[in-house]
């Protein structure tokens, strides 16, 4: 969305220079209390409406979850899991609002090869800047939570912006604003951690001895956190990763492989030039033209 200015940017994808980040904003966070969530999907509706997104009317495939997965238009999604607690034999209906976690150490940003397509602001929000996106999909590979989606319409990646346009003018994200039970709350990261601690105490008093906060250290903590009744088992909440971390491939990619790749590219350029010198320019034959025309007609 990029409604914040360059002076708020602390990280920029595929860029060696450090942005000035002259304005230091306070770190923010959204807290999603899974134990208070009733799965009403008001957050999903608010997200579609605030961001003016057009999702397709789908079909029912045997579950409450609609759409069935995150899409380039659905940046948040209630994921419903029917889990039988082996300790009590009671059913628990675990409803988790899925979406971008806004990692302090964002894997998407690290993996992104396009300069300035992914930025992080000093308040912690990780944002996609569409005009710089080349649609390569590396952000998806870099994300430990499998969040970004590529749009079929414009081949660019999309995900939750944490309503950076609202946050930058002092408003809470649309999802938090719409949540009827205040299962979604928004504020400074510090305040959210404090609020979460109170919730954990309440849950423990109600018999959830493993209640806790999900703020995974493997990605440097997140600016979207959960309160979970069973914080010892994040994976029961529709495969929330136990210990998310940026894939080692991203590190490799941005380190050794990157330089090896650049060397390979250089060699290719040299080879191309030498080929041109030795063999002359490539000529397009009539047969090539014919095939191209057939392909074009078929496509139309």
């Amino acid at each position, binding site marked *: 969305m990029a409604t914040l200015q360059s002076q708020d940017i602390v990280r920029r994808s595929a860029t060696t220079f450090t942005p000035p980040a002259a304005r230091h904003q306070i770190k923010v966070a959204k807290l999603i209390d899974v134990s208070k969530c*009733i799965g009403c999907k008001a957050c999903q509706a608010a997200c579609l409406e605030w961001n003016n997104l057009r*999702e397709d*009317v789908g079909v029912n495939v045997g579950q409450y979850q*609609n759409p069935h997965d995150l899409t380039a238009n659905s940046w948040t999604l209630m994921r419903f899991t029917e889990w039988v607690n082996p300790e009590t034999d009671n059913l628990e209906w675990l409803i988790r609002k899925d979406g971008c976690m806004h990692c302090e150490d964002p894997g998407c940003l690290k993996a992104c090869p396009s300069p300035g397509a992914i930025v992080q602001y000093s308040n912690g929000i990780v944002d996609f800047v569409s005009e710089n996106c080349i649609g390569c999909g590396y952000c998806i590979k870099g994300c430990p939570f499998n969040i970004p989606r590529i749009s079929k319409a414009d081949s660019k990646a999309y995900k939750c912006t944490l309503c950076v346009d609202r946050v930058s003018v002092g408003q809470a994200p649309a999802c938090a604003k719409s949540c009827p039970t205040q299962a979604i709350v928004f504020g400074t990261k510090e305040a959210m951690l404090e609020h979460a601690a109170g919730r954990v105490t309440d849950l423990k008093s109600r018999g959830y001895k493993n209640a806790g906060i999900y703020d995974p250290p493997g990605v440097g903590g997140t600016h979207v956190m959960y309160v979970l009744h069973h914080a010892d088992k994040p994976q029961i909440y529709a495969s929330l990763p136990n210990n998310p971390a940026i894939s080692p491939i991203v590190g490799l990619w941005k380190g050794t492989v990157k330089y090896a790749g650049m060397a390979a590219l250089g060699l290719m350029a040299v080879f191309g030039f030498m080929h041109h010198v030795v063999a002359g320019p490539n000529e397009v034959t009539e047969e090539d033209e014919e095939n191209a025309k057939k392909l074009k007609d078929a496509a139309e």
Partner: protein
Amino acid sequence: MTNGWNDIKNTDLVVIMGGNAAEAHPCGFKWVTEAKAHRGAKLVVVDPRFTRSAAVADYYAPIRQGTDIAFLMGVINYCIQNEKVQWDYVKAFTNASYIVKEGFEYSDGLFTGYDESRRDYNRSTWDYEFGADGFAVVDETLQNPRCVWNLLKKHVATYTPEMVERICGTPKDKFVAVAKMIAETSAKDKVMTSMYALGWTQHSKGSQNIRGMAMLQLILGNIGVRGGGMNALRGHSNIQGLTDIGLMSNLIPGYLTLPTEREADINAYMSTRGFRPQRPGQMSFWQNYKKFFVSFQKSMWGAAATKDNDFAYDYLPKLDVPAYDVLRAFDLMHQGKMNGYFCQGFNPLLSFPNKRKLTAALSKLKFLVVFDPLETETARFWENHGEFNDVNPASIQTEVFQLPTTCFAEDEGSLTNSSRWIQWHWPAAEPPGEAKTDIWIMAQLHLKLKAMYRKDGGKFPDPIVNLHWPYRLPNDPQPEEIARELNGYVVENVPDPNDATKLVLERGKQIPTFGVLRDDGSTACGCWIYAGIYTEAGNMMARRGTADPGDTGAYSQWAFSWPANRRILYNRASADINGKPWDESRKLIWWNGTNWGGFDIPDIAPTAKPQDVGPFIMNPEGVSRLFTRGMMRDGPFPVHYEPFESPIANPIAPKVRGNPVARVFRGDMEQFGDSKEFPYAATSYRLTEHFHFWTKHVWVNAVLQPEFFVEISEELAKEKKIASGGWVRVWSKRGSVKAKAVVTKRIRPLVCDGKTVHIVGIPIHWGFTGAAKKGFGANMLTPFVGDANIETPEYKAFLVDVEPIAGAQV
């Protein structure tokens, strides 16, 4: 609600039974969250399905649909057996000590006086013993075997935990766990709130479901107190307003009743509405009935309502049947006895039972007028939509007029919420196209009819030509003008009897409260309980004060709460017999030695001595009723009756099918299925993603829940080889639907009376117009029978069969 939404935050225990607040009332449900956060309150959910409410509950117990009375009577029995009774409350504020007439008995599921041929009771024995002084006889020691308490004790003794398990399918340990949590609130410093909705009303014994919980709440001392009460969660933003204003065929505004044809004059009408106190010194507030009634007549017919014509009593229609409820209206239509139908803000083709019968009925009309902001199925009942509405338009001669109306966000007016708060609202948008307000449309209709009757006369044109129509622009009455009329105003000066130079009431002024209404024609009031909404001080509904002294959640300066801006009904019962609050941390009003005061408007007269005047001022007894005399058609105590379509025979009365006094029209009994042919117990319900049949017209909501489905257990899916997400056919004796199957752990088979009962859940939101995928209405399947007292259809419990199918037209 006896209490209000905000007050739920004051409770210790929330029981959601007969409703699904998180699912159907997500915004109000936030108060449950508040109670949990600030009071450490617990939430208990009792439902056939593990619902969205259950997802955030502290305890969940399953129950078979249509067996709530057995469960509730079981809890009452548990409380009595375990001495979990708020005795001071029960003795002082209920009719536990009243002696019931000799002759009243109960056996085999029936009370004294049943006449099977009429499907009705002679209720003459269902009453108190009255003394020579005209007052009810009481035994404060509760020793008399015929006192209400002992009769109740005997009545509920049948409902042991074992019997509850046998009828309801609720495992005994789960039932006892719930009963125990509820029973703890009999302590004076513990309170429970009951949140219920259509899960209790939509049964052939819906009124008795609610009575069952009301009785339990009285035994626990939870009525009239903060955080307690019987809280009906109303389904539309203004459905409370609908009943308040008397939009029922047998009511006039403020819960006054229309005369019957046996009441030919006002004296006959008033003879059964005098409400003489049945105990000494009681307020028996309905003694003021005539003041409210005459003021209503003055509001309707102005100068044409005079003392000489009994305030235009003859202008009122006289009922020849108990009520022309929607089921009766459609039955008459089906018989060809009703020619025209005005359908205003209502989509009966989806919201009333047995769609096939409804379609046949609408096809017999000469004309149908639909007022609606949306393209409803009812307006298009004649249009062929393939299997979703398989009709032949050429064979339907009904002329349909569709009048587009404004939506609530496009006009000004008031909405009355479940808390009885009447809140003013302003338009947020311009209406599209030719849409007009309902008021404007009604005004044009009235003025045209009035002109025709004036010109041509008729058998009895008086009620129409004399209708009081004082609006500044006759063809465009404004909402504020109507609000002022509902509030009431002074018609004639009323001098002060002590000082003739002064006036008690001044002609033309708005009245301040219903307390000043008179039965001599000097006041007019459209709806007595709404008196106070628009006074000389202005529009009270538009108030937005946020002060809340005592942090009670009452917010007395926010809008207006009927009656008299009272936030909690029967609030005198929040204090003991001497006027001292039961619980200091929940004090509401109290007696200071000379008068009542506190955080709410007292229910009783401010100087009424606490020992003398009972809190239940609307009852002639001054106390609440554990035994309800002859006021309900199906008995003074609730009895467990099976639904008309039930998977098992009634374990406590095997010979009784359904509610023995529920009205069944000719031809409909034959359309009830039995469990041999239709083995599964079905229930219908709402989903959070949709609001009735409106939001399927909205793109975003259609995205969130796009397609009609039914829910079944993994066990039934396995038995019938049904895949989750696959197509199924579901059919009852009345119709058949195709749907996607959602196979879930949230529905489990129950064992009732030794038999495995599978439950089929059917959400209601789809039809053949709108943005969502076309789908079938649940009312293709539901039976055409209603509650014995108020005729709410039995949507929550019926029988179906299910089979997998290959696919369906999409």
